[in-house]
């Protein structure tokens, strides 16, 4: 995490603890308000005072990202990505401000789990997964596996930071920014790790959406169904999958989105795996269980999805937009110009190319 010219590990940890304390304090302030001694209350107020500037700015940026999405109504305008880019631009224009740091860290730590829970409710549709053909599911799993193996192998070979490698792997193999957001707390990632991996995955995905997939489609005369499958199986961002399949017939569009949804199941492999690798012990974070429960409830309880999804989705998107805005505000764009940035880009591109290659080989075998 780049914290400016005078940043150091101590100040980062300090800020984190201040943010955590403040977060905890805010969550419990209502319960304990009556019983807290005066001294603790004043301490809490001091912590709130430290947190609010960063939190406010992250909320503004996150809402702006969400607003852009609503305003443009374009599949390219992923609110998470827009919020992060806005955050990065704001940080780049205004420079580093130490006063914002506690609030930004608090925003990231607070809104990511909230978004994850609602994400399970909105996107984790087990019924849809079961409708996909078994051979396709096998190919999707193979592609996820290839993504993981290639990215983890390259990350190890290039001596990339573990956190960046894990986030790049989940972001590439599963669902881009969302997966990165879900996995980041499980692997103890810092803002810089998140921004580097997210931007790398974004560039790889954009390259696939705008250049590689259209080129391959034309070059290899791929049928529309295969193209939809290719987009759903290899493109990292859900928005980009929708964009790629936007011009296709509705059933192919649904196929692409369904295939993309199947990739969400990879989270149940990725999060415990990477969390264990990062923390050297098997660990499944609490929010993943909630995420799973929400998915099961919204998939199998009749009427739940239809009734509550319209409510849950904006909350999920807004939560993550704010979190991504906070990440962007805390991240330094120059981080991409470092060796780690270059490695992350290389890994993301190689992973994507390998996935596309495996898909083409797999589809050839299936057909």
């Amino acid at each position, binding site marked *: 995490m780049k914290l400016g010219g005078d940043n150091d590990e101590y100040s980062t940890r300090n800020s984190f603890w201040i943010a955590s304390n403040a977060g905890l304090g805010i969550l419990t302030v209502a319960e304990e308000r009556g019983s807290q001694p005066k001294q603790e209350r004043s301490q809490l107020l001091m912590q709130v005072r430290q947190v609010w500037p960063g939190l406010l700015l992250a909320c503004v940026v996150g809402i702006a990202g969400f607003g852009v999405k609503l305003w443009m109504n374009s599949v390219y305008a992923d609110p998470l990505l827009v919020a992060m880019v806005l955050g990065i631009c704001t940080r780049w224009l205004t420079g580093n401000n130490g006063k914002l740091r506690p609030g930004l860290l608090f925003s990231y730590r607070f809104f990511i789990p909230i978004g994850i829970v609602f994400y399970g409710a909105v996107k984790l549709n087990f019924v849809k997964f079961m409708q996909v053909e078994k051979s396709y599911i096998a190919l999707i799993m193979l592609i996820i596996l290839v993504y993981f193996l290639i990215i983890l192998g390259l990350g190890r070979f290039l001596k990339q*930071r573990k956190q960046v490698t894990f986030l790049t792997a989940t972001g590439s193999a599963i669902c881009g920014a969302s997966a990165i957001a879900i996995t980041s707390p499980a692997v103890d990632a810092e803002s810089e790790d998140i921004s580097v991996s997210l931007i790398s995955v974004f560039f790889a995905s954009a390259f696939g959406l705008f250049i*590689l997939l259209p*080129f391959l489609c034309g070059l290899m005369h791929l049928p529309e169904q295969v193209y939809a499958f290719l987009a759903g199986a290899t493109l990292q961002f859900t928005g980009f999958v929708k964009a790629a399949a936007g011009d296709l017939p509705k059933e192919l569009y649904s196929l692409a989105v369904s295939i993309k949804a199947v990739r969400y199941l990879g989270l149940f492999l990725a999060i415990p795996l990477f969390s264990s690798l990062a923390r050297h012990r098997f660990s499944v974070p609490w929010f993943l269980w909630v995420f799973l429960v929400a998915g099961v409830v919204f998939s199998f309880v009749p009427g739940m999805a239809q009734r509550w999804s319209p409510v849950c989705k904006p909350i999920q998107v807004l939560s993550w937009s704010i979190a991504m805005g906070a990440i962007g505000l805390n991240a330094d764009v120059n981080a991409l110009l*470092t060796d780690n*940035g*270059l490695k992350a*880009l290389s890994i993301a591109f190689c992973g994507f190319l390998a996935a596309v290659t495996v898909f083409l080989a797999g589809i050839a075998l299936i057909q």
Partner: protein
Amino acid sequence: MSFSHPSCNRQPEMMGVPSRHASSLRTKIVVSFFIAILVFGICMSVAVQSTLKSQLEAHQLEAAVVAAVVRNVNVITLGLIIAVMVLTLFIAIILSQRISVRIKTLTDSVQHIMNGDMDIRIDPQLMQSNDEIAVLAVSFANMTNNLRLSYHKLQEKRTQAETACQEAESANKAKSQFLANMSHEIRTPLNAIMGFSEVIAHADSLEKTRELSTTVIRESDHLLSIIDPILDHAKIESGSIELEIQPLNLHELLQSVISPINVLAQPKGLLLLLDQQPGVPMAINGDVVRLRQVLINLLNNAVKFTDRGSVTLRVETQASAQENNLRFAVIDTGIGIPADKHELIFETFTQADGSTTREYGGTGLGTVISRELVELMGGQMGLESEPGKGSTFWFTIPLRVAEAPADQSELLSGEPDGEITASPSLTVLVVEDYEPNQAVARLHLERAGHRVDIAANGEEALAACLRKRYDIIFMDIQMPVLDGYGATRRILSECELNRRTPIVGLTANTDQATHRLCEEVGMVAKITKPIRGNTLLQAIKDYRLCAGRSSTPKGECSTPTAKKPQTESVANADVATDMPAAPLDMEGLLEDHCGDIPLIHALVNQFLALLPDQIRTMKQALALCDPEPLAQEAHRIRGAAGNIRATTLFETATALEAQAKRQAFMEAEKTLGDLEEAVRYLTEYVPCLSEFQETLRH
């Protein structure tokens, strides 16, 4: 794939930046190019596709046709974009490689300099182009050159400082070792002095006291001989020593040097030779005292370290283009000195072998002082020696021929003019703040029959002089309240009674400045401490001579330090007729032993030490009327007395021997009494030998 060069990666780590923030120029160039071309490619792709679609749709073509056209166009345009991207990436890598290699070369040079390799040269190829890196390389080369020069200068200074530090450390070590040695050397005689003094304090017989006092005096002399070189060296080091250049008779000087050394050489069976080369002038200008000191020291060392063979003093002239020198060389056939120890010989506080002090005694400063004195005289000193082949210590001094040689017998001669005799009783004021010194002066003067008053400082002396007239005043220089200079000035100006009283300074300072100051304030003479009885008496004698010539200016009558205390022969002394004949024929003794007073002293003491037993034996023989042991002991005493030229004793012992042989016991008893009286007189006379020696030494 890694685009970062290891040397580039090192930089941020060295600067304390975490490694995950490590970055390099190559990375930045490649990433920037890649992102730029990717964004460009995406924009191109979007623009082409949207334009194409809208154009084709405007012509209301079938969807399948549109799709086919778009697909074909995509293949071409996107293929081109991909090709351009790959090419651009390739160019970016090559370009960054070329830039980073040159920067890496510079970085490597910086690394070398950081590691202390200042001799690194910048690759000239780096400076050949006209770009910024070439300018940087040229600037860096210039900076490196300057840095190299500074570094080398710094290294040189550091080496000098380290050498100086080592020298200082070794000098300090040598000094400590020297102090340890000297502490031992000084404590040994001091121990004897203190021990014997304590015994004297509790002694119940005068005879015993005198006998012990002789030892105390001898050990004091030894102590003085240790301390003197140290003080000499300190004076030379502080630059306070001044030469007294005056005409001198070289022949007399050499003879005066050879004679006492011969006394040391003879017992060892060494041949002492004087090799005076032709052309050596007799009269030269020089400091006779210092020249003699150097020669004595070198000869003394030569004899000390030579067990058999000879010691030669060679004197010759040495002409060169610039100047003529007089070269003195002391050549011995002694143990020799290894070449690696030659310089040590002339280093302060060191001897070639650390055990030398223990084995041969001495301070080890002799050669150091000699070299310093020679250099002070404008000459040089050196050494040529090999172990087992003897040594040659030589020195040169500028040859300055004098018109006529001075009469330097007083300074050079080892022969005394005579002994100090008693003077008429005088009233003497001793001004001295140190009580033991007061007591010494009082004892010496009262023993000579003078009346002594003591003042502890200048003020007390002034008060005493206002009350009473003194025949002579001995004035210490350094005193509390009022020092000797001030007191002298005030006595001579304010005390009517003592305006003409001669004042003799007492000081431990032997430098010329003190001497001049003493003269300036009106002192007639200056006596160097330690105070010896004979010196005081000699000063009184000089005063008396001076007093006899009342018109003589002060300056002419005094300065015993320059003239040295004189001794007069008994025959010439004013009161000689009142005094019994001297127990020893000093003139003959000095002739016999080349003026070696310590040797004479030792011989007399040895003789006196045996006498009590011999007298006891003779008394017993007389009581038993046994002539044989009586004659035998008388014969022994006669022989020994003859050796030491104890004339009275010799004659008495001769008479006693004859009486014993004749068995004239009545006469023998009387003669034995005379002999005892003669022994007593000789015993009383012995301390005067030390004073005699001191007189000669000065």
